[in-house]
């Protein structure tokens, strides 16, 4: 499964970078969203996969084999931060568009000058 997920991560990265390279700023936002999926999945996979055993202590002692809790904690933080970034960027784009009437990044540069 690690091999399969490695290719999934690669696909997500490719899609994210392609979208980030667009001139349309909305596509860039979608690229940002895909990029955070890719990064989170990368941390999750690289730490090693464990099927089904959530890192929860039941009745005194933890089970012999459980999923690694540390990457999960890191990713949980990352998901939330990613949401904050996306929300802020989206509103920023909305404001930029309502001021400049363009969603083309190259044209925004010209308006800046």
């Amino acid at each position, binding site marked *: *499964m*690690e091999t*399969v*997920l*490695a290719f*999934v*991560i*690669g*696909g*997500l*990265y*490719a*899609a*994210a*970078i*392609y*979208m*980030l*390279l*667009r*001139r*349309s700023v909305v596509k860039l936002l*979608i690229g940002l969203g*895909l990029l955070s*999926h890719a990064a989170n999945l990368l941390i*999750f*996979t*690289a730490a090693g996969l*464990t*099927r*089904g*055993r*959530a*890192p*929860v*202590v039941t009745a*005194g002692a933890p089970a012999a084999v*459980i999923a690694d*809790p*540390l990457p*999960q904690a890191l*990713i*949980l933080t990352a998901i*939330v931060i990613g*949401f*904050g970034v996306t*929300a*802020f960027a989206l*509103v*920023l*784009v*909305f404001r930029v568009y309502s*001021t400049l*009437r*363009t969603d*083309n*990044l*190259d044209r925004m*540069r010209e*308006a800046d000058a």
Partner: protein
Amino acid sequence: MIIASVAAGFGAALIAPVVTRWLRHRAGWLLGTLPAALALYFASLIPQAAGGSATTARLTWVEDLGLSLSLRADSLSLLMALLISGIGALVVVYAGGYLKGHPALGALYAWILAFMASMLGVVLADNLLVLFVFWELTSITSFILIGFHHDNEQARAAALQALLVTAGGGLALLPGLVLLGMAGGTFELSELNLQAARIQSSPLFGPALALVLIGAFTKSAQFPFHFWLPNAMAAPTPVSAYLHSATMVKAGVYLLARLSPALAGGPAWAFSVGGIGAATMLLGGAMALAQTDLKRLLAYSTISALGLLTLLIGIGTPHALEAAMVLLLAHALYKGALFLVAGAVEHETGTRQAPLLGGLARAMPWTAAAAGLAMLSMAGLPPLLGFISKELVYESAFELGWPLAVTIALTLAFSVCVSGVVGLVPFWGRPKPLERHPHEAPPSMTFGPLLLGGLSLVFGLAPGLIDGRLAGPAAAAALGAPVALKLSLWHGLTPALGLSAATLVLGLGLLVFIRLMRTRLHAALRPWGSERVYQAGLTALNLAARGLTQLLQSGYHRRYLTIIVLTTVAAGTFTLMRSGAFNWPAADSPPGYYELGVALLIVAAAVMAVTTSSRLGAVAAMGAAGYGVALIYLIFGAPDLAMTQFLIESLTVILFVLAFHHLPPFARLTTVSERAGDAALALAAGAMMTALVLSAVGVQLYPSISPYYVQAAESLAHARNIVNAILVDFRGIDTLGEICVLAISALGVFALLKMPRRKAEGAPTPEADPQAETGR
């Protein structure tokens, strides 16, 4: 005390503008007392240094790095320090007359005094790095002084050229000195010079020597770096006399002499230093003859003299070094005087063109007298110091065979001719018609050249004043062994005397025919100017810099991103391949069919997000990919992650859909080939990330701290959900930071939404967007 002697110049530089505002052009007489006092102080150190015990001072800075402000005044340093402070005093006085009434006279004084202090630092430094710092300071002060007439474009270009060449040499010098210090195991010059065997057997010796020589050659205007010096004549004449004849350009020669105990001895030193010196000497001498501008003439002749000094240091025999030290002194005295004379002539007549001048002696008797003394010394006539130095040069050259002696004699014949053109022809013969009726220059401008010319005579008549006290011990310092120098005017009928006579005859012959030769010589020597190489290099450098800036700083988000991704992919792939880190996961669990389904869902969603032209479709696809990722979390034991991901993903999609109401539809803004290029780059990046994940899976370089969290979750945090325990307890501060980020983001969102709407003037509308139209 010796540290104060260096610091005093910098202090005086600070108050010089104030003093000048108060005393105007008479400030020179007051400001000149500091260099004069320093000269007396250095003179008082001479007997002690001649006795072999140098005066030292040391302020430790970083002990472990061998960094300390250590100064040391031995005879070689004192010889230079006396020239710097003594001529400095005369130049400060002279500048008051030369630039009388100039609004920036105070600034000139400040920079001249700052230069003097830096130059004293160079010659008194005993630590290589201290020497380097002062060395660079002289380059910078020289840059400012050459560009003193900054409203003149030529002066600015000349200043920049001098800075680029000398500071470029400084860039070579620094690694050279560091390598030298590493090879010798110390950065203290006095200790380094005792380590010759260790340094010269070190593998670092070759590079260190080459780099140090480049530094010295650029500073002392040696071929092929000589071209900056004639252009530096754009500086006011007192500056030219001081920096570009008597002191700064001798810094390179000083460095060679200073380091010669450590570096000399091998063929590499003799051939590179001697060879470059000889080439510079001949080229400079011949080029001087082709000039008509008095200052450029003197500049080329200075290049020639610096070449001869370099040649003598390259020869490195006791006699050659003795000759070098006496010549160093003699040259500073006569060339400094002649520069000041040329400035006085220009000041009084309004021209520096040699062919326009004649018969000035009647109007300017004192200047003529000073010129005569300096000229006789430069021509090498008895009983002046120039004669003695020339005899010494010939004697040391004869030791290596007559061809060398004859080559030097040819150069010195050029020098005889130059001395006549500057010191003789303008003052004697028939007066020529001038635009301005010449008067004698003010005392401030005749005092300096007369004193320098007078010293040439005094030291010539009484060479005992300098031989055993100053020049001899200085030569000993450059040799690293004691020498017994006894100077006298009369050596008997030696081959050197014969050669001197021949030189004089040849030089006078050249002087008679100089007018006929000038143009032809000028044309013949033109290809030897390496200035065109400099110009081409400068143009290429500027073009390359502009191109690189345009490439890297385009202002287009896509290009920045392309460069970043490309660099990451290239560096990542290279590292993966070179280190052999890439391998397939060792323990790969076989995927279940539903897991494969989820994986396919994510990939299909990603493809759709990229390819769809519908905004809603793209956002839905992004959401689907996020849900797929959440399913993976769920399958592999992370229900908390899955829950969060489901929630956040739903929220994101809703946000997007709400915002789309106010945003334009997707437009194709790029061409097919651009998209293909981006796709290729994106796929390459994806492939590299895949390879990275494959290699990273199951690699555990350090023991994980997870078992600790698992053990301690219940006992310490009283929690059964370990992920939660980590977030709110073990790494609670992290989570606090995360909350802050979210709060700031929320504030930003609120502010952006509530900000009063204001349309930018002239903002492009989507309809008027030509790129959007063509690309659609």
